[in-house]
């Protein structure tokens, strides 16, 4: 009896919203195929998370428990999930395109001898052969590819926000205890320490001021900070973000990076300063309600996707803007 399986993830100990999105995607596919949808919770103590995911209409929740699964060690998780997949031979395996998903899914796909498609936006079943049709953006989002792969399980990772989160239902899923055969020897990479850093969550901002390659000096970020302070008086939570080149230069940490490999956000207002608008960046901010672009090049792409544009050097415009905002405050 083959089923659809999805990997449950937690954020700060609680069920992550991306898992609810996977449940939505998985439930629809399972219904279409007439198979059961199940989920797996991985850890050394899985009960709280398994219980919190049990009220979303899944048939079964596998509790994959082992002392080596404490915290997140990619080799241990891949090993445990490989063991489970061999026990239950799922037909489809869905994983979020998250930090955990990116680490686990490729390793697991190799071990299960199947082809993974990452970062999918949409999934459907081919009525002819029953294979999963996987839709994913390529060339940074300049094209949308729909592809099929042979191999079982049919395996994908799914982009955050691609599906609506599932709502709770009245019934409860069956909880199934599973103890994987795991041995310490599979862990070849040793974790020495994790250093917590202050991490900015740009998706919590009402307004994001983002700096790009056009920013010529590190000191100029003070100008942007002054603008953020001035705007925060009327615009709520204003945060500073950036495009990839700024992180490459070491001027900002990667938690502030907006784009395909950074945060994908949709604030009320997005102010792009000195950002030309490479597609990888646009993917991260195009759903912003209002987009304001400041750039010296009137032909740049950012103006093509902006609602409001100012062709001006930021070094003169921003101090003048801060002055005006402070006067009229």
């Amino acid at each position, binding site marked *: 009896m083959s089923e659809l399986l999805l990997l449950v993830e937690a954020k700060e100990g609680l069920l992550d919203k991306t898992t609810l999105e996977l449940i939505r995607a998985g439930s629809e596919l399972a219904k279409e195929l007439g198979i059961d949808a199940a989920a797996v919770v991985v850890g050394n103590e899985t009960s709280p998370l398994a219980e919190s995911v049990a009220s979303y209409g899944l048939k079964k929740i596998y509790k994959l428990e082992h002392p080596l699964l404490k915290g997140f060690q990619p080799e241990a998780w891949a090993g445990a999930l490989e063991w489970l997949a061999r026990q239950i031979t799922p037909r489809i395996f869905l994983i979020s395109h998250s930090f955990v998903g990116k680490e686990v899914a490729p390793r697991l796909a190799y071990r299960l001898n199947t*082809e993974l498609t990452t970062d999918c936006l949409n999934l459907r079943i081919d009525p002819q052969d029953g294979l999963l049709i996987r839709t994913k953006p390529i060339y940074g989002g*300049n094209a949308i590819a729909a*592809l099929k792969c042979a191999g079982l399980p049919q395996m994908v990772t799914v982009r955050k926000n691609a599906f609506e989160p599932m709502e709770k239902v009245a019934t409860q899923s069956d909880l199934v205890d599973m103890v994987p055969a795991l041995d310490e020897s599979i862990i070849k990479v040793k974790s020495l320490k994790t250093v917590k850093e202050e991490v900015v969550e740009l998706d919590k901002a009402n307004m994001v001021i983002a700096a790009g390659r056009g920013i010529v000096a590190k000191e100029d970020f003070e100008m942007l900070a002054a603008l953020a302070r001035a705007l925060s008086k*009327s615009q709520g939570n204003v945060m500073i973000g950036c495009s990839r080149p700024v992180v490459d230069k070491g001027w900002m940490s990667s938690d502030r990076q907006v784009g395909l490999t950074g945060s994908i956000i949709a604030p009320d207002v997005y102010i792009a300063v000195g950002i030309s608008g490479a597609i990888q960046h646009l993917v991260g901010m*195009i759903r912003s309600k209002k987009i304001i672009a400041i750039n010296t090049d009137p032909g740049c792409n950012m103006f093509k996707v902006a609602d409001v*544009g100012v062709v001006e050097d930021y070094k003169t415009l921003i101090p003048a803007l801060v002055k005006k905002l402070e006067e009229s405050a």
Partner: protein
Amino acid sequence: MKEINIIVCAKQIPDPEVPFSNVSVDVEKKEVIVDAPNVISPYDENALEAAIRIKEEMGGKITVLSLGRKVSDTVLRKTIAAGADALILIEDPAFERLDSNSVAYVLSCAIRKIGAYDLILTGRQAGDWDSGQVGLLLAELLEIPSISLARSIKIKEDRVLVEKTVPVGYEVVESGLPALVTVSNEVGELRYVSRSKMMGLLKRPMTIPKWGTKDLVDNVERLKKIQLVELSPPPDMRRACLFIEGSTPQEKADKLASFFKELG
């Protein structure tokens, strides 16, 4: 430790920084047409930079391996100009449009042919398909440990010490050698290569091996192509931009300030 042997996998792709207006989709032929020069995939450049820093600190050899369609040595010789020692191109019609497992398989054949190595570095993902799998698959095929999303890499005796980006900050991990590490952009940009240095290098005769199916793959049956069902253009992103005009920067700033006032 002895001098270290590093292999960097670098993919040639059309410049991903190109304006979206230079990219079109041929729906019939299921092809993406990019009007842009070819470059080295940005994260692979970060991987090369990480390799060069290790070599500077402890000596060693860097071999760049590039698999692709019409791989050009003028694009890839930049890796030599920046500090790599050898370049090997892998090209064959049979290697075009391969799925991730097959790409990793061909690379693993090439690496086995090279023989001795201590460290393999790849970018975290390629700038065209953004799959982010080949590095980890390659490590599985070679049966060596893999660490992803490195922001700093150090060799300490016979071990590799990596700071990797994790959601709460960073994690310090280590493994024995040989190992594979995928590199993220926090490592830093590839060092600047001057035009004159690049031109000089292009004039210099250099033997760049080009390997194809017959050199690498016993079992061509194992190579699988991507099965594209359809290819479509993305939803239109364009908006009608209202340009704020003014004779002085202050005038533009004042108008922009009133725009914010209306919002607030």
